[in-house]
């Protein structure tokens, strides 16, 4: 025992700050989830508050907002998956076909850029460009004779706007993984395909796509797992009460009900409920992929 201690003392000491961080800021909150079964009272603290069992879960399930919120969260995630997932693959393949190295580098550099701009700025840009008074997009529409559209007040448009802005923000960055996979493809395969008289499209179909398919599958599992984990920041910044019908999702609801209105127990219960569903998603996605393609995360 003392031997193990002496041998590992220094390494454990190095690891200590990291361990403390995880215990305090990652694990303590997990134990704090007991408040979802209690009536958390600010003055009594977590331990002295009264047990209420599943009251808050029942409250959420019976809330008329329950289904709309689930639907909004799920649809937004699904749209992002369906339209956002193939976009960087397409861009990577297109970039791969570009022969001029300088042009390729320029396109890459520029397309990574929005990934480093804050959500506040991206949301501001979206809202201002779409503004009915003097916004860039409405100016263009006016030019072709279409009257001003109040984009950010149309519940029907929110999902599309959000997903498009997500693609704009992250498409370049997400191509990196595919471009890395592309460099691993043996150039001889392309030469062989050429010998067989394959056209450009044929080469993409028979050489490029199979070459990057492992990367595609792994990214797809990760993305399916994250369908319900839509970033809080950007939705929160882009939404307004006029479009809550489609723009209000679980995490923004948790913030409003839990943090702003102070219903800590209720808010945390909703969060935990979604966390568990998310976990089931990841697990199922991984299981399916292991069965179907023999690629999996674990």
């Amino acid at each position, binding site marked *: 025992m003392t031997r*193990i201690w002496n*041998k*590992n003392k*220094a*390494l*454990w000491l*190095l*690891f200590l*700050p*990291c*361990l403390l*961080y*995880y215990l*305090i*800021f*990652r*694990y303590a*909150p997990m134990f*704090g*989830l007991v*408040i979802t079964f209690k009536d958390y009272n600010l003055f009594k603290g*977590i331990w002295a508050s009264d047990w209420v069992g599943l009251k808050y879960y029942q409250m959420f399930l019976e809330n008329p907002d329950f289904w709309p919120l689930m639907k909004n969260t799920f649809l937004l995630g699904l749209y992002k998956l369906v339209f956002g997932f193939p976009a960087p693959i397409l861009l990577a393949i297109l970039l791969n076909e570009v022969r001029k190295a300088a042009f390729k580098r320029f396109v890459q*550099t520029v397309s*990574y*850029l*929005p990934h*480093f*701009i*804050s*959500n*506040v*700025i991206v*949301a*501001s*840009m979206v*809202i*201002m460009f779409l503004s009915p*008074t*003097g916004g*860039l997009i409405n*100016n263009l529409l006016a030019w072709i004779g279409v009257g001003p559209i109040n984009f950010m007040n149309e519940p029907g448009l929110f999902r599309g706007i959000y997903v498009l802005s997500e693609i704009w923000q992250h498409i370049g960055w997400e191509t*990196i*993984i595919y471009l*890395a*996979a592309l460099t691993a493809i043996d150039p001889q395969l392309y030469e062989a395909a050429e010998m067989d008289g394959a056209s450009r499209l044929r080469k993409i179909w028979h050489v490029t796509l199979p070459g990057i398919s492992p990367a595609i599958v792994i990214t797809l599992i990760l993305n399916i797992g994250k369908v319900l984990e839509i970033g*809080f*920041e950007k939705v929160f*910044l882009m939404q307004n009460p006029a479009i809550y019908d489609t723009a209000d999702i679980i*995490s923004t609801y*948790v*913030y409003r009900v*839990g*943090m702003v209105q102070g219903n*800590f127990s209720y*808010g*945390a219960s909703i*969060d935990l409920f979604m*966390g568990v569903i998310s*976990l089931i998603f990841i697990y199922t996605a991984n299981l399916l992929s292991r069965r179907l393609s023999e690629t999996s*995360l674990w």
Partner: protein
Amino acid sequence: MVTLYPFLHMLAVSLSSNVNVIQNNISFWPKGFNLSMYKLVLGDPQIWTAYRNTIIYTVLGTLISLVVTSTGAYALSRKDMALRNSFTVLIVITMFFSGGMIPTFLVVRSLNLVDTVWGMVLPGAVSTWNLILMRTFFSGIPKELEESGRMDGLNDIGIFIRIVVPLSKASFATIALFYAVGMWNNFIFPLLYLRSPDLFPLQVLLRNLVLAGSASSGDVTSIGGDNMVVEESLKYATIMVSTLPILVIYPFVQKYFVKGAMVGAVKG
């Protein structure tokens, strides 16, 4: 093109004279060049406070994150550390499950970190993704170098400081950049953990000025005829001023980001 144009448009509008902004005839180049919007933005003391706060959070946060992440990652990269696998499992679990917004807030509050600088830099000190990335970097360092250090009488901490750190400058730079950008752009922490406007970073100020729509000061009305439009170029100017550091530094550091992302992509 689609990526660059929005930035050029904002720059053009923010630099143009009001008449042209009102007539909506600006696309690429500023018309009736004037800097009055920038004078207004830079004359606002709020911007400077927010700038200072952001810089403090970014520098302090990046330093803390870098120290905690690198020491932790190094320990995890050493195959001979006892309990290594248990620690790894402990950390990986947090990638799939977390306490969520509210319990985390309660922890931060019970530590009296709400409305302090520490509330901004400690709760996010380690990103599991960056930790794994760094562990991968460190695993690549040849074992012989560590052994030679041991011959010279260094202990594990000495080996880390004298041998591993100097050898990993590039990876430190990459991870530092990841943390710095994250901290610079962070909006959710100040939203949750800060109360007093004196502590607000740029992102919160930006949201208040640009999205919540309260114009920065009473001066706005005296400048142009049509408030809405002047407000627009004022907002663009504010966005440009607060984004400029990233836009300027970006071309120089981009290759580090890409390298970091590549390592992450390959090792998964």
